[in-house]
């Protein structure tokens, strides 16, 4: 008997949290937006999502098994599913499927596994893949089907300009009346507009945010700081010059909600402390507005997040938590 006792150091109990719980929690939080994308973009959205998730899982399994020779089945942790879903969310629903496979290969094969797999990557795999695809397939990546018009068709869907493209045109021409072409704030909230499949329905994304906050998968710091920064800065700009769209439309357009709720909050590539997360969020918000206003691309969210991913290690080394005993109310 005595020889059979397990002797290990404390603590002897665990809270029960796990990587799977968090990753599949994110998957559940993505479901409302996923259903919205199926509703608005039909069969194309279903195909792109399926191909993206399956490719991500397969590539991670293959790299792990044949290149890294790791006997542990890492795809069970759920992170590849999350990457697959987020990658699909960042694509137009009529993109050729082989391009989706190339994107998955870049996301998992290059951005994630090259650095050592889960927890080691510097950049958000899905976003880095989106940037890669935007450069590689500029036409296919920026041809947006119109929501609700292409339920059963895939490749030949009717296409149209996204709200962000309209805003960009208004800024370029200085013609305020162009902004009249924008959909209403309500349409943008529910997602009845053009864009990447997962980004259009702000309401569904916010529902996911609430779920993740309630289950304590993420904290409020990153999403709130991004959204608040964009709202305040574009609000001031709109007041100064009406050629800039109203802050409500800015916040609801493009990948802002998707980025703020699901992409910027990726554990691996975002800062560890609340203070660091606020700095990171505010910087992403500012960069997004700068790129949307002055950049060549109409959308700035993904580049803003990727740029701040690169700063995350620096933020971590400067934003230390408040040490016990170093605050006011300590020794007299």
């Amino acid at each position, binding site marked *: 008997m005595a020889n059979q006792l397990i002797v290990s150091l404390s603590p002897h109990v665990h809270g029960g949290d796990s990587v799977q719980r968090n990753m599949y929690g994110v998957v559940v939080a993505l479901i409302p937006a996923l259903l919205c994308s199926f509703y608005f973009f039909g069969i194309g959205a279903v195909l792109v999502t399926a191909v993206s998730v399956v490719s991500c899982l397969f590539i991670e399994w293959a790299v792990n098994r044949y290149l890294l020779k790791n006997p542990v089945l890492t795809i069970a942790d759920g992170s590849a599913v999350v990457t697959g879903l987020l990658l699909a969310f960042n694509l137009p629903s009529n993109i050729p499927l082989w391009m989706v496979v190339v994107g998955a290969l870049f996301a998992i094969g290059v951005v994630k596994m090259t650095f050592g797999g889960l927890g080691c990557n510097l950049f958000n795999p899905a976003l880095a893949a989106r940037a890669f695809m935007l450069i590689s397939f500029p036409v296919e990546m920026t041809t947006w089907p119109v929501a609700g018009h292409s339920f059963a068709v895939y490749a030949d869907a009717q296409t149209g300009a996204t709200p962000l493209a309209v805003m960009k045109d208004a800024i370029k021409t200085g013609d305020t009346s162009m902004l009249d072409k924008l959909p209403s704030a309500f349409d943008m909230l529910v997602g009845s507009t053009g864009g990447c499949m997962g980004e259009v329905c702000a309401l569904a994304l916010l529902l996911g945010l609430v779920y993740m906050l309630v289950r304590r998968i993420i904290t409020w710091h990153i999403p709130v700081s991004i959204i608040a920064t964009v709202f305040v800065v574009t609000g001031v700009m709109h007041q100064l010059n009406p050629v800039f769209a109203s802050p409500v439309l800015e916040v609801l357009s493009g990948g802002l909600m998707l980025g703020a709720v699901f992409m910027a909050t990726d554990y691996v590539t975002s800062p560890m402390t609340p203070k660091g997360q606020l700095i990171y969020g505010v910087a992403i918000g500012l960069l997004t507005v700068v790129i949307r206003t002055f950049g060549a691309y109409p959308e700035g969210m993904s580049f803003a997040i990727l740029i701040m991913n690169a700063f995350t290690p620096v933020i971590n080394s400067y934003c230390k*938590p408040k040490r016990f005993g170093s605050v006011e109310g300590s*020794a007299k």
Partner: protein
Amino acid sequence: MKTFKIGGVHPEENKLSAAEPIRLAPLPQVAVLPVSQHIGAPAKPVVDKGDKVKVGQVIAEAGGFVSAPVHSSVSGTVLKIDSVIDASGYAKPAVFIQVEGDEWEESIDRSEQLVRLEELPGLTGKDIVAKIQSAGIVGMGGACFPTHVKLSPPPGSKIEWIIINAVECEPYLTADHRLMLEHADEILVGVSLLMRAVDVNKAFVAIENNKPDAIELMTQKARIYPGIEVVPLQVKYPQGGEKQLIDAVVNRQVPAPPALPASVGAVIQNVGTAFAVYQAVMKDKPLFERVVTVTGKSLARPSNLLVRMGTPMSQLIDECGGLPENTGKIIGGGPMMGKALLNVEVPICKGSSGVLIMDEKEARRSRPNPCIRCGKCVAACPMGLEPYLLADGAAHEMWDMLEANAVTSCIECGSCQFTCPSHRPLLDYVRMGKSTVTGIIKSRT
């Protein structure tokens, strides 16, 4: 409701034995009394093989100021002085006594009658500290720091309050809870004695609000004891840590080591210690028995037992229904900070607050996954440290980095490892880093 400000977790409470009144544990056949049941110099044995001893007789004298004497917990004959593996896992010298009858020293007042402070008007602070010292009292929450040393704060520090630690934040343990329900007056007289010992007129008894019956009883009883206030606290681990408790109760933060709680004007004593102080000063009874929670989900009858020091844990487990077949781990103390025992013959010592049985499934750790940098350990750390960074730094032997990131402030509460979704052995590494860095700092002077 009050609590500490930084971090913390809330483990499942599992207070299985909270409704079990304290029972007397049977006397052991052989009592094994280690001479080092406290922090500081080991006590020096003053008995030899063949000597007859009585309950309460000194068998080992204090080995210095930071030390405590050891008293016999039984009457009988000294068998030998030999080594025994105690709860720390190391072999330590101990006095083995063959139990014969139960004959107590005549000086001990064995009556149940309460003696109030007013009945001894001439008692000075010095008298009290001297009695505590000679009774061998140490911190009974588990740290085992000699109580008389804590009551002799360094010159220059002004003590304002006594804070009684009755939070019992470790899951499973209920010994302090039962003690308060069954001996409230004795504890409050003990607190009054501690107040007189350090010459303060304010004391707080801090109780977590998962013990509403104890809060109610103590609050009601405390009315007639001047200066004693019961403070209910929100349930959060590690509230029983000295620094966290001071922060929770009086909102002051003790600076980084080597600063002591006295530097912010507080002296902390465990509620069990306050009871022992009462018995030592008012009843002339040295510290040779204590309440121990014997518990576990697989145990037939989780209980609170009044146990003589030196009783082997196997006997307490038998008293609670016997060791279950599928036992995987036996822990001395609670599940968050307790120590896994090497065998069931480890004797109960002054700091043994509990014996916890875990079955094989509970006892095993999960396989660790890679760090996903979620920051949950940082949010959980009650000292404001970065456990992921410290663990990583320790694994790579980056001692300078660990020192710069305050590894020596770690209180080893385990909140980080408890929280980690990747089940990483964070505290194993941080402990290793802390002890190495502490050694490096010491070697500089």
